[in-house]
């Protein structure tokens, strides 16, 4: 192991080559050996941010040796996952493999859990005991759910019953099953934490999808939205219109209704003002940057501040961060689309830094979030962000961006094409 810590590049290539051979998924052995002469980038997290960064680094600098550490065997998309709850899409439709990233681009994907970033020795330590040396490390860990804020749910048994389904996967299917098992006339409640949280419009879209399902199969049932925020945090007019016009009498929206705890014995949501006994409770706890990013959390003990030109942590140069774990810039959502854009901007910066070139001093990001207010109709919010040299942050371009004029079917087709293109842009 001492050789890993040796700064002589040739030495540590030998060792890392052995490591890669041991842990890389079959099929990329040839690419591994031909690419191993280049500098090493290790990316923790293969979601929208990390996978995009990996692909774009290899596309723009094929000599760079890129390894992604990912805990899941496949990529499951959070966007469109609410449609699985609503019943108009399947898990298969939102589940993709990392094969193309490996075979077409030569990205190594290591299935595992990163346990620590050793910034002195420049290695990513894995729970398996392996260590991956890096020249640059990119963390795209997404969010962790702060169950400590909901004492009744702060144990595995309670969490298995009161689901978040805020990371698409087995919980998505499990929540769908709870909805299917719920009797007609029952109450589904979703609790929304104070902003910022992953995917601002997501909870409201989910409420629509559950209502759409109830309307078709269990029309006496109710959807209760318990929002800790003062108002709907995304596209408020459009969502409220959908609830009033499409789900009248079914959806009840309650602002300033923070979930304080859950009584799991009686299935009761404990609120600041009164309690609600419900049939299915989808509790979304407050969120923070994923645990591997803990040493780089500098904002509110929850989020990581970065340099918006290099995507390096404010407190530790050489460590790059992106996606939902970031302390957002003004009006920037924690979204898949934004993480994909972070991934490309970070990729360009890392490629430039490894080559000893200047980083782009004028990056642009954009964002589009489509939300399905039913199986057929969609609303969007869009924004364009550019680098502000005075504030050293990303600011929206005045006069640009906006929302749908009304819920419409045309954008449902666009939303599905958006999904296919961003999946390909991220993974293929």
């Amino acid at each position, binding site marked *: 192991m001492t050789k890993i810590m040796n700064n002589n590049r040739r030495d540590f290539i030998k060792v890392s080559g052995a490591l890669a051979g041991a842990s890389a998924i079959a099929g990329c052995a040839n690419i591994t050996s031909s690419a191993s002469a280049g500098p090493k980038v290790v990316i923790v997290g293969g979601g929208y941010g990390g996978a995009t960064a990996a692909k774009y680094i290899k*596309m723009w600098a094929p000599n760079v040796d890129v390894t992604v550490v990912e805990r899941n065997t496949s990529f499951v998309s959070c966007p469109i996952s609410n449609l699985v709850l609503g019943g108009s899409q399947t898990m298969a439709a939102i589940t993709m493999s990392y094969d193309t990233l490996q075979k077409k681009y030569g990205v190594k994907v290591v299935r595992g859990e990163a346990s620590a970033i050793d910034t002195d020795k420049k290695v990513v330590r894995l729970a398996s005991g392996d260590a991956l040396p890096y020249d640059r490390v990119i963390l795209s860990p997404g969010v962790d759910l702060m169950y400590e804020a909901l004492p009744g749910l702060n144990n595995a048994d309670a969490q298995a019953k009161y689901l978040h389904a805020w990371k698409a996967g087995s919980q998505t299917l499990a929540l769908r099953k709870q909805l299917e098992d719920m009797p007609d006339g029952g109450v589904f409640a979703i609790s929304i934490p*104070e*902003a*910022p949280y992953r995917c*601002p*419009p997501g909870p409201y879209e989910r409420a629509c999808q559950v209502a759409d399902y109830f309307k078709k199969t269990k029309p006496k049932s109710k959807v209760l939205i318990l929002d800790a*925020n*003062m108002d709907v945090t*995304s*596209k*408020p007019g459009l969502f409220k219109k959908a609830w009033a016009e499409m789900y009248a009498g079914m959806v009840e929206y309650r602002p300033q209704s923070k979930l304080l705890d859950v009584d799991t014995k009686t299935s009761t949501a404990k609120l600041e003002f009164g309690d609600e006994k419900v049939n299915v409770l989808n509790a979304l706890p407050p969120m923070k940057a994923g645990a591997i990013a803990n040493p780089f959390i500098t*904002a*509110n003990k*929850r989020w990581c501040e970065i340099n918006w030109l290099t995507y390096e942590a404010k407190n530790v140069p050489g460590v790059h961060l992106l996606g939902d774990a970031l302390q*957002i810039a*003004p*009006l*920037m*959502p*924690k979204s898949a689309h934004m993480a*994909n854009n972070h991934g490309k901007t970070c990729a*360009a910066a890392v490629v*430039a830094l490894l080559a000893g070139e200047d980083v*782009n001093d*004028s990056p*642009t990001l954009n964002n*589009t*979030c489509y939300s399905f207010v039913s199986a057929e109709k969609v609303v*969007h*919010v*869009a*924004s*364009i962000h*550019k*680098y*502000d*040299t*005075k*504030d050293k*942050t990303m*600011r*929206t*371009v*005045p006069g*640009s*961006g*906006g*929302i749908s004029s009304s819920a419409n079917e*045309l*954008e449902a087709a*666009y939303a*599905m*094409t*958006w*999904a*296919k*293109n961003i999946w*390909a*842009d991220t993974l*293929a």
Partner: protein
Amino acid sequence: MNTNTRYLRHVLSSAAVLFCVNVSIAIAQAPATPAASAAPPAAKPAQTAPAASVAPVAPPAPTFAPSNLTPKGVRSMAATCSACHGTNGVSVGGSLAGLAGLNKDYFVLQMKNFKEGKRDATLMHQIAKGYNEAEINAMADFFATQKR
């Protein structure tokens, strides 16, 4: 700046650090308002509203960096299109146009039409307004040379 103002700022910035989480609740609905121009640059806009909290509202004029129209700058800018329109403009979806191989003049004209409301759009009129003429020209050159 007098001493009182300085002290007040100190108190405010300490309070901002201590109560950031609560502040974020209070401003969750407000468009992000950058600190007053006199505020020290160190005073970060604490928590800002999620982008989508309201339709994007024009904040006080930003000081944007000049457009980076070098080949790598343009490549990065064009990559902002690809989440919807496919990597390097090669769309794999059905209903959103691929941009790879588009005639340069056509691309420029369509973006101009989107901006001016001359072409019907659900969303592109809002996106087109985020890019200036020089940027649109440069991206048109980029996509014209991409293989479909």
